[in-house]
């Protein structure tokens, strides 16, 4: 089995509301997949289900052939299944450097150390300096997260994800809230990732989707209605209908 991640008939409902229905797809090493869909389509919910925050109502998930459907969040992260959040979640009272350093130390099993000083670890330091540098926020290392601008926090969110050495990386709208001229840094950082990891990115900006993705998944009303190349997606009648619907909805209140 060469699939890194496999979803089989995954469904999730909130009461009567079916937010994800019968979703099946696979991610292989090296995949660069965009997950798109109108607002409220269930994209974030799907990432919650995959990352372990929400148990699926039915269906199974496999990571490298192992059933992970019942695994908790930390166990999935340690197996290399890593996500970022659409609404930034960071350690607000720590510095940017400490946020990334903590992820690195956790990955290396160093957080069981009780009496070595966290700032005295040269290889951890080299690593976070490199990561923050890649995302162009090295100069913010010593600043407390709660004092960072939102766009900078978005980049830090990505830095934490990268620090965990993911095999499968799920990015929930990484560019949302990032100033337009800084968005390319996100793509650059992703391009520098090892070629054999799989990246699934939720993104609304179609420019970014075209530059990033080799394959596109379209979610509408909780169902996967399209899977194919970025070129094919714009031509697909179902996709057009789903997006036109939401576009019309968005216009209506005006």
């Amino acid at each position: 089995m060469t699939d890194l991640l496999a979803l089989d008939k995954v469904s999730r409902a909130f009461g009567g509301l079916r937010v994800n229905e019968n979703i099946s797809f696979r991610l292989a090493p090296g995949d660069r997949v965009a997950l798109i869909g109108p607002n409220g389509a269930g994209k974030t919910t799907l990432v919650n289900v995959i990352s372990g925050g929400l148990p699926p109502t039915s269906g199974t998930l496999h990571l490298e052939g192992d059933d992970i459907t019942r695994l908790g969040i930390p166990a999935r992260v340690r197996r290399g299944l890593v996500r970022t959040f659409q609404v930034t979640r960071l350690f607000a009272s720590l510095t940017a450097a400490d946020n990334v350093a903590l992820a690195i130390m956790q990955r290396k099993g160093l957080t069981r150390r009780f009496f070595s000083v966290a700032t005295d670890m040269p290889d951890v330091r080299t690593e976070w300096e490199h990561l923050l540098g890649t995302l162009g926020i090295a100069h913010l290392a010593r600043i407390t997260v709660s004092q960072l601008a939102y766009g900078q926090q978005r980049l830090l969110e990505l830095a934490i994800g990268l620090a965990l050495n993911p095999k499968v990386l799920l990015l929930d709208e990484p560019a949302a809230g990032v100033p337009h001229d800084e968005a390319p840094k996100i793509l650059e950082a992703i391009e520098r990732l090892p070629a054999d990891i799989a990246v699934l990115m939720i993104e609304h900006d179609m420019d970014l989707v075209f530059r990033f993705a080799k394959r596109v998944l379209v979610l509408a009303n909780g169902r996967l209605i399209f899977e194919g190349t970025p070129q094919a997606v714009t031509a697909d009648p179902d996709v057009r209908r789903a997006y036109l619907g939401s576009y019309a909805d968005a216009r209506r209140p005006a």
Partner: protein
Amino acid sequence: MTGLSTLAKTSDRAFPFAAELMGIVSIAALGVLGFLLFPDDLAFLTRLIGITLLVLSLDLVTGYCGVATLGHAALFGVSAYAVGNACIGGIREPILLLGVGIVAGTITGAISGALITRFRGLPQLVLSIAIGQLVAALANKLSSVTGGSDGLSGITPDPVLGLFRFDMYSRTAFVFSLVVLAVVFVLLLRFVRSPFGLLCRGIRDDDLRAQMIGAMVYPRLVIMYAVSGAVAGVGGALNAMTAGVVGLDSVSFERSAEVLVMLVLGGAGNLWGALFGSVVFQIFEHIVSATNPFHWMTLVGLLLIAIVLFAPRGLSHGVAVLWSKIFRRGGRA
């Protein structure tokens, strides 16, 4: 960010054990100051040190992990009773008795932590009160081991290191307690800067984010609670040994509430804050209750309101801000 943390950072680079050295020097200085201010009341200073250990212990779970608790005296009291009974039972060597307190505190901490950290927010707070009340009720009922409302008396430990007898002026008790406090404080200064300590602060900030970097939150919180229990246990042990009696007040709700007030006063999430909060509050309380026995509670209340209004993040933060302002102004001139 704050003056304190930048201070700590620059000194980190200058000398590897600078923070630890600063801890020892500060506690020694506070000890000398205390001795000069209250030469005839070393018993008060000794009691203050025991409570300070409880405040430090509380800071570990409340300040560093964000656990809301109003039952922390249970950890202190159970250890004090355990040490009292051990001493009456024949273990009279002070260092050994400290060990008894640490073990009792660690076990109590691990058990109550395992219950309390399962919950968040208000349920957590209520559970902590319930555990505190349960321990207080047991202490009252099990009078064969606790002496009930009369207290457990007749605790007479051997001389410290076989040399220094616990005298009636509390000289030995004071110096012994001060040394123990310095050792614990230095160990804690190191502990909170460890990767484990950093992770606990991360958990306090955002539990789900901590899980999403692969951390098992619950076991970490229970471990921290056990460490906190050990520190409270040292306080309880000192209190039992130096006072010679253990009363119901050592497990009371008032004790739990008071140490939380001291912590918030000094600044939670910072060991220096816990230290200063405890010292300032207890000295203020001591002086005011002696000079004005009728209105001292009112004055303590007014002090607290003033601090919450003018230094909402605690004395230590307020002082740090003031310090950096003065420092910056001096630098420019």
